[in-house]
C-alpha cells in the first residue's frame, strides 16, 4: 500500500522539491541532496515565459466557461434523455460515451479549417465552444445516470402543483442532482484545463492556455532550467489540485456506472 502510494506521489514530490531549489546530487555516492529552500524559481517562471501569468488567467477563464457550457447543455439533454419515452435511450447514452472517447485528433484538422472560414480562428469563443463540444458527451453520460436514478414521483408531485418544465428542473431536479452536477463540472474543468490539441490548432498565439505555454517554452528552449520548469509545473497543477481538494466529497458522485436507469 505504502509502496504504491510512494510510486504515484514520489515523482511529484521530486518536482515540488526541485521547484523550491532542492536538487538531488546524483554524482556523489551514495546520492545526496543539495541546494537550499527558496521561492526564487517561482519568480523566474515569469522571466522565462513572460506571458505565463497571463496564460494562467486565460486557462482559468476558458476552462471555466467551457465546463459551464458543457455541463449546462449536457444536463438539459441528460434530463431529456432520461425522461424520453423512446426505448433506445440506453444505446443513445452509450453512443455519448463512445463520442466522449473520440480523440480530438479525429476531427480537429477540419475543425480548424471550419473555424477559419467562419472567422472564429484565434478567438476565445472558438476555443471555449470547441472544448465544450469535446467534453459535453461525457457530461451527458454521467448526468444521465444521475437523473435516471431519481424517482419520477418528485417531479410528478411538482407537475400536479402546476409547475412547468423550468420549475421542475430548477426547483426539483437540479437540487437533487446538484452534487453530481458539481462533480461533473470539476472533472470537465480539469479536462479542459489540461487540453492541448484544441487550443493548439485553433489559435496562433492570441488565446494561450497553460499547456500551450508549457509546450512552447519547452520545445523552443530545450535547455530550460529544471527548477524553473518544475516551478511552472507546480503552479499549473495548483489550481486543479485545490479545486479537487475543495470538492473531494462531491467528486464521489462522478459515476460512470451504467446500471442506473435500468
Amino acid at each position: 500500500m505504502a509502496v504504491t502510494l510512494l510510486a504515484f506521489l514520489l515523482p511529484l514530490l521530486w518536482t515540488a522539491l526541485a521547484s523550491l531549489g532542492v536538487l538531488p546530487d546524483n554524482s556523489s555516492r551514495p546520492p545526496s541532496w543539495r541546494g537550499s529552500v527558496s521561492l526564487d524559481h517561482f519568480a523566474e517562471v515569469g522571466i522565462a515565459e513572460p506571458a505565463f501569468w497571463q496564460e494562467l488567467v486565460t486557462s482559468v477563464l476558458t476552462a471555466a466557461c467551457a465546463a459551464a457550457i458543457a455541463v449546462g447543455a449536457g444536463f438539459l439533454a441528460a434530463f431529456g434523455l432520461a425522461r424520453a419515452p423512446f426505448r433506445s435511450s440506453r444505446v443513445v447514452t452509450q453512443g455519448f460515451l463512445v463520442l466522449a472517447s473520440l480523440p480530438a485528433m479525429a476531427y480537429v484538422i477540419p475543425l480548424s479549417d471550419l473555424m477559419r472560414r467562419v472567422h472564429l480562428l484565434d478567438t476565445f469563443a472558438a476555443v471555449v465552444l470547441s472544448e465544450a463540444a469535446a467534453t459535453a458527451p461525457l457530461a451527458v453520460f454521467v448526468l444521465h445516470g444521475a437523473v435516471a436514478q431519481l424517482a419520477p414521483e418528485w417531479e410528478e408531485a411538482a407537475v400536479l402543483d402546476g409547475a412547468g418544465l423550468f420549475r421542475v428542473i430548477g426547483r426539483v431536479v437540479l437540487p437533487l442532482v446538484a452534487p453530481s452536477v458539481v462533480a461533473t463540472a470539476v472533472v470537465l474543468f480539469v479536462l479542459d484545463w489540461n487540453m492541448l490539441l484544441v487550443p493548439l490548432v485553433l489559435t496562433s498565439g492570441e488565446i494561450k492556455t497553460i499547456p500551450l505555454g508549457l509546450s512552447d517554452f519547452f520545445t523552443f528552449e530545450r535547455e530550460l532550467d529544471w527548477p524553473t520548469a518544475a516551478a511552472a509545473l507546480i503552479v499549473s497543477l495548483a489550481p486543479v489540485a485545490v479545486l479537487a481538494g475543495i470538492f473531494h466529497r462531491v467528486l464521489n458522485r462522478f459515476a460512470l456506472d451504467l446500471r442506473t436507469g435500468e
Partner: protein
Amino acid sequence: MRLTRRDRLFLFAPLAFLLAGWLVLPALLGLLATFSTYSPFATSVQFSGLANYAAVVRDPLFVAAARNVAVFTLVAVPLELVIGFSVAYMLRRPFQGRAALRVLLLLPWLVSPIASGVMWHFLFGGATGIVDFVLGWLGRPDMPSPLGDLRLALLAVIAVEVWRMAPFVTFLLLPSLASIPTERWEEATLSGASWTGRVRHVAIPAVRPLLLTITMLLTGLSLGTFDAVLILTGGGPGTATVTPALYSYNRAFGVNDWPVGATSGWLIAAAVLGAGLIYVRLSRTKVAD
C-alpha cells in the same frame, strides 16, 4: 414528467447546436474531404476516391505509428485497469484518512500530459533525475534516459501514461467497490473463498459495467495519444514512439499535407468507433444475463 415538443426542443437544442457545430459537422466535412484533394490552400478540388487512404496506409511512418499505438493500447490499458483496480481494492474499507488519500492519489491525473512530459523528461535522465538517484542508492551505474533508447522509449512513454491514468481508474472504481455491502465480503470469506475468489466473485461482478465503460474511455484515449509523446519524445528516437495522432498533426500542420493528415485523423476515428461498437455490444450481452 411528460415532455411536450417544446420541452424537448428546449432540452436538446443547446447540446445539438454545440455538438453539431463544433464536433459532428467538422468530423463529417473532414470525412468528405478525405475522398478528395481538398486542402484549405488548394485552388481546385477534385474527387480522388481512396487515393488518400492508399497514400496513408502505404506510408512506412504511418505503419510504424499504427504499430506503436497498437502496442501502446494493448499494454497501457490493461496495466491501467489492473493497477487502478488493485489500488481501489486495497482502499475499499473505510479507514482514517481515506478521503484525503483519495484526493492525493488523484494528483497524477491532474497533471496535464504536457506537464507530465516535461516532468518525466527531467526525472528520467541526467544529473537531477529520479532514476539515477535510485540507481545510485542501489550502487548501480547511471543509466542513460530510456527516452533516447530505441527499444525502451515506447515502454517509457507507456509507463508515464500508466502513472498518470491508473490513479484516475482508482478514483472511478473506488465508490462502487466501497459500496459493496460488508455481508457480501463476509459470506465469501465464510464460504472459504481466497482473496482471488473474493476479487472474482464479489468485486468484479459489482463493477463489471463500470470496468467496461472505463475500458472504452481508456481505449479511445490511448488510440488518440498525442500530447503524451509530443514533449516526452516528439515521436523519436527514429519512429519508436510516433503515433497516428502525431503523424496526422505533423502532416496537416507541419508539412501542409492536408489530405493525408485529415485522412489519417479519420482512421483514428474509425478505430475508436469500431471499439465503440464492441462496447455497445458487450454492454448489451452483460444486461441479458
